[in-house]
């Protein structure tokens, strides 16, 4: 019996079962009612795959394995338990990078293992695993650095950017071809070929992520997520393993779909996001329009309270500023008080608000806002005229009317939440500084706009206490 559990057949049957669990898990992740169970089912699949692999005949020494497993589990579990919800984008980026480096190491380990003879296909897979794994790793680390503001979040552009990128891509393919055909023309040993390829891949990851600015982060995070899946699938071709290929492809496909959704939400192509350096170029262009006229009309919290108190429908529109000032709990409190006051409250969430896909939804869920109150631009824009008050909290580009009205604007054509069509718009803002894209926002000067200057959390808390008194 023991023999059977270690047999190739049993291991492979278990991998099939694990793949099925991943598929069901992912499927269930697409509905809020079943999502948590889906995640558990997918985790069960992973546990199964790990256990049967550990039990298999091929595993001879457990010593290092056990240390690495336990150490990794401790690090992963503590990071997941202690992270604050506002720093979720950074953590996701970091985990993603670890997946990338793991695939890179698997590819390298098999390549340097002289006891395993790799054919042309496996060698090509080694090349792709190392290349994509390396790009994922440094790309994700840089994204982590930018998101956690260890590194300046502004896009980093330099002269000859595309030329440098092309050279490194070319170089990586030369090394890749040599790894596969082993012609000896480069005069480098197998080991150094791999080292050079790894270095090239790591540099490429930096080069690809450095030009991406803060507001474009949701796109690059989704794309890196896709890469980590592709790297795992490529590793599957190195070790001829189906479960790696299935799971990796599923992740690759889902990441690509998310990337596409994010690009559409910004009305830009993926190429434009990757090489455009949006935030850096547009600041000079944006000023050319120069037709923006009117004055900024500030409002204080007591006046804002009176207007909110009389409102029948209120729409909160959060952006990255809400995450920065950690205002989500105060916002939920204000929302509940408004509802008690007989007002209809909704939250309009733009797909690219914040720094990762769905960032605002997570923060509001953390603050206990019911998810059916979170509405998308397409649902809320048609009824915008009936909204009494829009409260814009630290959002800027995603509510910019220039996207509809000013053809010269760099964001023209981007789908936005049309808050300026509401009867009154409150804009909570620290100062008059422009958003991450560095473009002027004529919303602030509109007739029905009122600026509520100051820290968003303080302003909202003051409104809450006005309601309570």
């Amino acid at each position, binding site marked *: 019996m023991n023999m059977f559990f270690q047999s190739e057949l049993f291991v492979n049957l278990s991998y099939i079962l694990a793949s099925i669990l991943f598929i069901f898990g992912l499927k269930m992740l697409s509905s*809020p009612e079943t999502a948590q169970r889906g995640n558990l089912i997918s985790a069960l699949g992973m546990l199964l795959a790990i256990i049967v692999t550990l039990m298999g005949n091929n595993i001879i020494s457990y010593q290092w394995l056990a240390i690495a497993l336990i150490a990794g589990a401790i690090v992963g579990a503590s990071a997941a338990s202690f992270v604050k919800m506002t720093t979720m984008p950074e953590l996701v980026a970091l985990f993603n990078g670890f997946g990338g480096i793991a695939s890179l190491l698997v590819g390298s380990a098999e390549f340097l293992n002289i006891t395993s003879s790799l054919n042309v296909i496996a060698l090509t897979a080694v090349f792709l695993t190392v290349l994509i794994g390396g790009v994922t790793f440094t790309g994700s680390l840089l994204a982590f650095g930018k998101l956690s503001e260890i590194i300046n979040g502004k896009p980093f552009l330099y002269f000859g950017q595309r030329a440098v990128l092309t050279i490194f891509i070319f170089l990586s393919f030369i090394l890749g071809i040599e790894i596969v055909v082993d012609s000896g023309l480069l005069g480098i040993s197998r080991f150094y070929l791999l080292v050079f390829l790894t270095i090239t891949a790591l540099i490429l990851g930096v080069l690809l992520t450095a030009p991406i600015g803060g507001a474009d982060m949701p796109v690059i995070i989704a794309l890196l997520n896709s890469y980590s899946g592709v790297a795992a699938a490529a590793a599957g071709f190195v070790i001829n393993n189906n479960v790696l290929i299935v799971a990796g492809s599923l992740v690759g496909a889902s990441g690509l779909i998310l990337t596409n959704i994010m690009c559409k939400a910004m009305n830009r192509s993926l190429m434009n996001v990757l090489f455009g350096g949006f935030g850096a170029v547009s600041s000079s262009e944006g000023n050319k329009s120069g037709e923006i006229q009117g004055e900024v009309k500030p409002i204080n919290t007591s006046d804002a309270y009176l207007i909110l108190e009389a409102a029948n429908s209120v729409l909160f529109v959060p952006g990255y500023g809400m995450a920065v000032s950690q205002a989500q709990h105060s916002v939920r409190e204000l929302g509940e008080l408004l509802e008690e006051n007989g007002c209809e409250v909704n939250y309009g969430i733009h797909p690219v608000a914040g720094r990762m896909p769905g960032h605002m939804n997570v923060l509001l869920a953390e603050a206990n806002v019911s998810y059916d109150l979170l509405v998308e631009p397409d649902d809320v824009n048609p009824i915008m005229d009936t909204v009494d008050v829009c409260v814009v909290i630290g959002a800027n580009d995603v509510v910019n009317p220039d996207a509809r009205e000013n053809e010269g604007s760099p964001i023209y054509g981007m789908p936005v939440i049309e808050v300026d069509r509401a009867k009154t718009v409150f804009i909570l803002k620290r100062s008059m500084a422009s958003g991450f894209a560095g473009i002027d926002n004529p919303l602030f000067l509109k007739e029905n706009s009122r600026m509520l200057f100051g820290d968003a959390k303080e302003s909202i808390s003051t409104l809450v206490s006005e309601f309570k008194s």
Partner: protein
Amino acid sequence: MDSLFIMLLFVLILAIFLGFELINKVPSTLHTPLMSGANAISGITIVGAILSSGSDSVLLTTILGTGAVFFATINVVGGYLVTNRMLGMFKKK
């Protein structure tokens, strides 16, 4: 070798199509958990890592494999736990 490759390629292509079909209609509310949940699945590379680390072949392979196990375990354990924590907050009242 060729037939094995074709079989793996077959699996790859089908899985990609399946992935597109599965994720196509995810509400934006769930974008973050979907991403971190998918990210945890990409930690499947841990299977390859275990095989490299435990097969006791060449020292260098064992070292690299062990490193891979460490990073992949962080990815898997951290990824699933953080997704679970996030999804626990999504409630309807």
